[in-house]
């Protein structure tokens, strides 16, 4: 396994290097308005995704379960899914592409955190099995890049409203940023809801309770409620522009707390994956 660890770590570092190149290129391209550099950033991301994906597959084969148990594997998978989802959304909604200035460094941060976590082989706890658990974790992992894109768009909206940096011309018009942020918040809400539902089904299969008010469940519900209120305000109260962006930023902070900090600080059935 030692030799395999070396190969695995090397593959992860290679992906990191490629993501660093992509982050520099996209930032350069957006800030200095070099469309070519911004476009060129996709190539290292694609190659990085390939290598990174192989590393995840390699780990999956070695430990015998998908990347949904240990912190190392979850963070690594989050980083990979974040970039893959962003590329996918970038094709369908070309206007969101400048969000790469936030998405690439975040993916880099996640893979970096993964590498610095101890990549221990964890045996699967008896209740941590079944398709519902896989779906539960997967949809939270998918929800994260979606709301990150919405965050990037919301931040772009605030920056455009409050500053006059020349590079902001690379971003879409404020009305488009606003609408896209709303739309992506809606997507994130869908994925977050699916993650909650599948989690409830998994919990019912594992322990006979579909809801246990454990700290992570509670914070996930609070985040979901926060997004729900944001979407309600947008639809029925015509909340838009800077105020909507500010509200969304608060919701995003809630999501980060629910996904990353509560599992570290609180003891719960979910903490097993993050300790």
């Amino acid at each position, binding site marked *: 396994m030692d030799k395999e660890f070396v190969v695995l770590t090397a593959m992860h570092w290679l992906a990191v290097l490629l993501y660093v190149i992509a982050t520099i290129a996209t930032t350069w391209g957006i800030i200095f308005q070099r469309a070519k550099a911004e476009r060129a950033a996709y190539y290292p991301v694609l190659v990085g995704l390939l290598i990174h994906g192989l590393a995840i597959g390699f780990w999956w084969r070695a430990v015998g379960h998908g990347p949904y148990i240990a912190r190392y594997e979850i963070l690594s998978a989050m980083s990979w899914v974040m970039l893959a989802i962003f590329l996918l959304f970038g094709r369908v909604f070309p206007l969101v592409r400048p969000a790469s200035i936030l998405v690439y460094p975040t993916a880099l941060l996640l893979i970096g955190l993964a590498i610095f976590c101890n990549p221990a082989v964890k045996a699967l706890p*008896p209740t941590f099995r079944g398709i519902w658990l896989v779906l539960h974790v997967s949809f939270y992992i998918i929800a994260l890049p979606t709301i990150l894109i919405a965050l990037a768009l919301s931040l772009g909206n605030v920056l455009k409203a409050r500053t006059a940096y020349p590079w902001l011309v690379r971003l879409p018009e404020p009305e488009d940023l606003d609408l896209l942020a709303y739309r992506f918040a809606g997507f994130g*809400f869908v994925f977050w809801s699916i993650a909650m539902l599948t989690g409830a089904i998994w919990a019912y299969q594992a322990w006979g309770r579909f809801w246990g008010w454990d*700290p992570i469940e509670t914070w996930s519900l609070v985040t979901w*409620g926060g997004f729900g209120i944001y979407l309600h305000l947008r639809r029925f*109260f015509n909340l838009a522009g800077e105020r909507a962006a500010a509200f969304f930023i608060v919701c995003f902070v809630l999501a980060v707390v629910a996904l990353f900090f509560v599992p570290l600080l609180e003891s719960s059935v979910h903490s097993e994956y993050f300790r």
Partner: protein
Amino acid sequence: MRFDIRRLLTARTSVLALMSILLLAVVLSYIIPQRFSTPEAEFVKWQAAHRAWLPVIEFLGLHRLFSTPWFVGLLAVFWISLVFAAKAQFRAALVRTFGCPCSAVTAPELDGDSFQVDLSVGQLARGLQRAGYFRIAAISGAMRYVKHPWGYWGVFLLHLGIMVAVAASLFIAATEKRGALRLAEGELHLPSSPWLVEERGPFASPFRLPEAVRLDRLTPEFWEPGGLKNLQSELSFIAPDGVTTRRSLALAAILDYRGLRIYQEANFGHVFYLRFTDRAGVTGEVALDLAGPIEAARPSYGDFDFAEIPYHLKAKYYADAARETLVSDNPQLVMRLIDRETVIGELALGIGEGGLLGPYQVRLVRLARWAGFVFLQTPGVSAVFAGFAIFILGVMLNYFTIPREFLVQTTGGGYRVTWNGSKYRRLYLAEYRRVEEQLRQQERNG
């Protein structure tokens, strides 16, 4: 009067206030420990550290927040509001989907997004269908072509889903029955026997099993380096007429039996049956119930006080006397007898062995594995999941399938085609321009 209540409950501000208060209550339940989920010692400690807040907390029932009348009342008001909203949204979705095309003409946002073409109805329909727009309503001189008409049903389904999920959750909370048991191999639990822990909704009758249940055999499995991999139990259900039904269950392999849902819990261990004989020759039997170790080289521990023995007994046990395996029929029990702070005897025993422990002659006469089980009677859980699934379907329709429509009206020299991109108009303007260009191209080609 009813009209006023409906207006009040469906007012945007009321709904927002209700959602915010419910969310705040959830946050409060995180900050203030809840009786049902907090260990007693932790709960008392928290109360001691927050004495100044206790009168308010007690008055509002914040330690049992989800069962307070005000919270249940709020939830009920929220639910009624959802019913009214769902009804209104159903009507709105019906009108938007199948309504008269004339109604759309007056919408002010349509100004500007229209053009004139000289094509036949068939040519127009084909052109619009190629772009994903389908005719769903028509009256003389006007037709509606809609892309993703099901998107109009998103908000209704969203409301309906939450309505079903909340109603089902309340029903479960009011009627569920849950009993926890700890059974040793060979032990029989009668329907009249008390549960180890019983939880019941306020409208549920006492939870009694329809038949007696006995654990015949428990088979644990472990991972190679240690840690529980699985537990499998063989249970016998014995009816009053003596008919026995055998069933098995395991971790995450639930057993459904006569309307009961039975879960294997992850706790397990051994019960050690000991015979104590004192110096006067008086004999008594005690059972030590210890959790199972999950590593071969590490024991698990327990502390015991028995009425028959005036000393404190500390015990530990290894899964295997040789410390080599976790699956062994030869565990080793080690006991210490303590008189206040002083150890007055220590003894290690295997099955059938005996020895001196302080003033007692002790023999390990029998041992058996035990495991925990949870029995449930909770009708309505599927409705919670179904409600949430309907909600998700609604949200998906709402954000993934945005309806856009063209209104086609006959004019003197052809047709006037008017586009409605709804609230996402800006995002789909390019699509509108593309369709316009295609239709004009058709017109040019004749």
